[in-house]
């Protein structure tokens, strides 16, 4: 991970905020259909879908460097690709200079591809191993018929190679990707990306697969190219430190949604969303002796096909409140974590109170009727749960789960647990900062945006 680059931030960051809107996304959704089992395919029933991008609005201005930051699987790559029409949106729209590109087919997009370029994560895989640099870098010129003859072609390729620092260019023209180092390949990929004079470049973790020693150089090169060629960047990364150095604006993503969105300095100086705070705390120490990447709090990123209710971050959020979307799955996680820590006999004694803990695992249950185990009554279960709640109220840090439990009562031989109705936190502007954040704790007073 790139920690603190020794390069002076170029300083052109905040000033570049004034450009005209270049790309605008509204209500953007990309759901990847899961192949259901044989049965659901025949019956036509709903197979699940991975909600890679799940309702995103953003505006990218000319000259801006927007960072999409989040853990792996949060939908950064998919969002970046959808913004330039490489992945089809399943709902919502993306407009480029006022033109809706989600409505265009592959054929209609082709002329635009010249303007909207992408740099992929793996430079080794991005170049055709059987094509020399001369042909590979200049290919966009041929595709879009931008040169009249071979002389002009050669001149443009040489110019592009010089711009990306592959000098002297003559030395690289005849080489194959296999002859180049990782950093040189990424330079060649950048040369190919800029040769047709694009306006927007989506860079998907462009440095994550490179050696430590060349990462900062490639980022600096990208900044130079932006300055010289008047580019706009979308920079996709899981590395907050490089985003801090590189981006004017940052969008923190979690499970297909933007949870915090604003000017980089502001986001870093005063993170508003608990997830952002956790990410910032997890940035490794600049001191290499102690540079162990710290774990994010409580558990893993959930399955994007079955996102948690309410705020998707609530199962991991240390400060969650009642409306954050508590559900039966969270009770199961709580119980299983507890039983893991207990002695096996004690755990199995407690487990026997429940007929079927797995029944809690289904998603979307904001109220659940728990069947008591053999030889137990619903009252036993309730008593046990109340005991847990009391125990938790004394422990530090407070377990936020119990905020979400509204009532627990016995009904028809079952113990019924009801949770507070879930509410989706909406991105809302924090006054005087320019930062938007999606968290109930930061909502303007009196707002009741619910679902």
């Amino acid at each position, binding site marked *: 991970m790139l920690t603190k680059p020794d*390069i002076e931030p170029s300083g052109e960051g905040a000033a570049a905020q004034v450009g005209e809107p270049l790309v605008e996304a509204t209500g953007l959704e990309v759901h990847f259909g899961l192949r259901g089992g044989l049965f659901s395919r025949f019956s036509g029933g709903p197979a699940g879908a991975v909600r890679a991008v799940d309702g995103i609005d953003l505006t990218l201005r000319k000259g801006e460097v927007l960072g999409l930051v989040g853990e792996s699987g949060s939908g950064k790559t998919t969002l970046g690709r959808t913004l330039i029409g490489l992945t089809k949106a399943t709902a919502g729209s993306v407009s480029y200079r006022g033109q809706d590109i989600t409505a265009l087919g592959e054929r209609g997009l082709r002329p635009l591809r010249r303007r909207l370029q992408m740099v992929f994560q793996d430079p080794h895989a991005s170049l055709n*191993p059987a094509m020399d640099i001369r042909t590979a870098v200049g290919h966009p010129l041929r595709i879009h018929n931008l040169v009249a003859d071979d002389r002009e072609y050669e001149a443009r390729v040489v110019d592009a190679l010089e711009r990306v620092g592959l000098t002297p260019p003559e030395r690289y023209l005849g*080489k194959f990707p296999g*002859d*180049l180092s990782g950093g040189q390949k990424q*330079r060649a990929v950048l040369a190919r990306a800029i040769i047709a004079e694009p306006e927007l470049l989506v860079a998907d973790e462009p440095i994550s697969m490179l050696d430590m020693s060349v990462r900062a*150089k490639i980022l*600096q090169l990208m900044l130079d190219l932006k300055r010289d060629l008047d580019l706009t960047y979308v920079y996709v990364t899981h590395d907050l430190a490089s985003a801090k150095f590189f981006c004017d604006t940052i969008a923190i993503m979690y499970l297909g949604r933007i949870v915090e969105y604003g000017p980089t300095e502001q986001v870093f100086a005063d993170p508003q969303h608990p997830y952002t705070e956790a990410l910032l705390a997890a940035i490794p120490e600049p001191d290499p002796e102690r540079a162990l990447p710290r774990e994010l709090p409580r558990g893993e990123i959930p399955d994007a096909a079955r996102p948690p209710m309410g705020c998707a971050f609530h199962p991991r959020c240390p400060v969650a409140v009642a409306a954050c979307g508590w559900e039966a799955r969270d009770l199961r996680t709580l119980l299983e974590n507890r039983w893991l820590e207990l002695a096996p006999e004690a755990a199995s004694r407690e487990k026997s109170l429940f007929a079927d803990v797995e029944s809690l695992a289904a998603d979307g249950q904001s109220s659940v009727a728990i069947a008591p185990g053999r030889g137990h009554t619903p009252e036993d279960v309730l008593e046990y749960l109340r005991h847990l709640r009391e125990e938790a109220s004394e422990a530090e840090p407070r377990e936020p789960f119990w905020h979400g439990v509204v009532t627990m009562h016995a009904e028809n031989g079952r113990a019924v647990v009801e949770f507070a109705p879930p509410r989706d936190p909406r991105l809302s502007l924090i006054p005087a900062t320019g930062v938007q954040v999606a968290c109930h704790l930061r909502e303007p007073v009196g707002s009741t945006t619910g679902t």
Partner: protein
Amino acid sequence: MATTTLPTGPIEPTVSASASRFGGLRRIVSAIREAHGVPKFMLWTGAVISALFVITALFAPLIAPYSFDTYKAHGHNFPKQGSPDGDHWFGTTVQSLDVLSRTIYGARTALEVMVLAVIFSLILGVLLGLLAGYFGGWLDRILVLVMDALFAFPYLLLAIVAGFVFSGISGGGVVTAALSITVVYIPQYFRVVRASALSAREATFVEAARAMGAKPSVVIRKYLFGNVIQSVPVITTMNAADAIGTLAGLGFLGLGIQPTEAAEWGYDLDRAIDDVNAGMWWTCLYPGLAMVIAILGFTLLGEGLNDVLNPTMRRRRIRKVLLPAHTARRTVTAPAQPDVPEGEAVK
């Protein structure tokens, strides 16, 4: 690595360059150069035999004493069923034809049919495989169905049926024989090329080409073709061996090339069957032997190439490293260099 320095000199150390226009072929050539042991032996023996075969075929009119349909010289008819002697080293047939000349000209026919069949099936098989692999969908389904059906058919039977069909159209010449054989081989190219196209289609550089705005035809020609074509040389040499056998099979059944058009080993063998009963061994021995040697040559070449080029079949070689005498106390074993330079492998 130490901390990052100021980005002044952007040049990372260069790896040795070996510029060549044909990136795909380069890999094949370097693999061949590194061949060792049994594969190397097979490769080179096969190559030598195949080369002799090709030379014989090309220069048949210079090498053979007579033409394939000559039955008299200097005003004398050749002896009928004459045993080998000074005038006719391999003897003569029941039609008074010189066996040596027919055997040599047979190589020419075999080469012609082989080359045509390989070219036809290569072009069609590779093209269809690329289209099916890249586009997928219903086109792929239909092609796979047809090709699997062809593949499941006994190959000689398939060639016979195709031979009947084509002889009605184009007569009983070399082209007809080649076309009949082509039908047998298309599915092989199709399968291999489709499989590599399917995996290459997922490669990032194909995606990158699409992101540049390349049309599918450009993607296929410039990005898929070069990477898919590398699996083809092995099948080609294997098919070459097979084509000789299939052609002879057709000729033996009287379905191949008309005897007036060219000399053909299978046809000669068919005619020689009665001679064997009469104690005449030369009419069948020489064409048969020629056939076996030619097939052996191409099979060895194909198997050798397969061993050398197919990375899954290659084992890492353990090579003994001998230290210079003044430092050496003992010999050390070390694994050899990986055969494919890193980063060059296509996913």
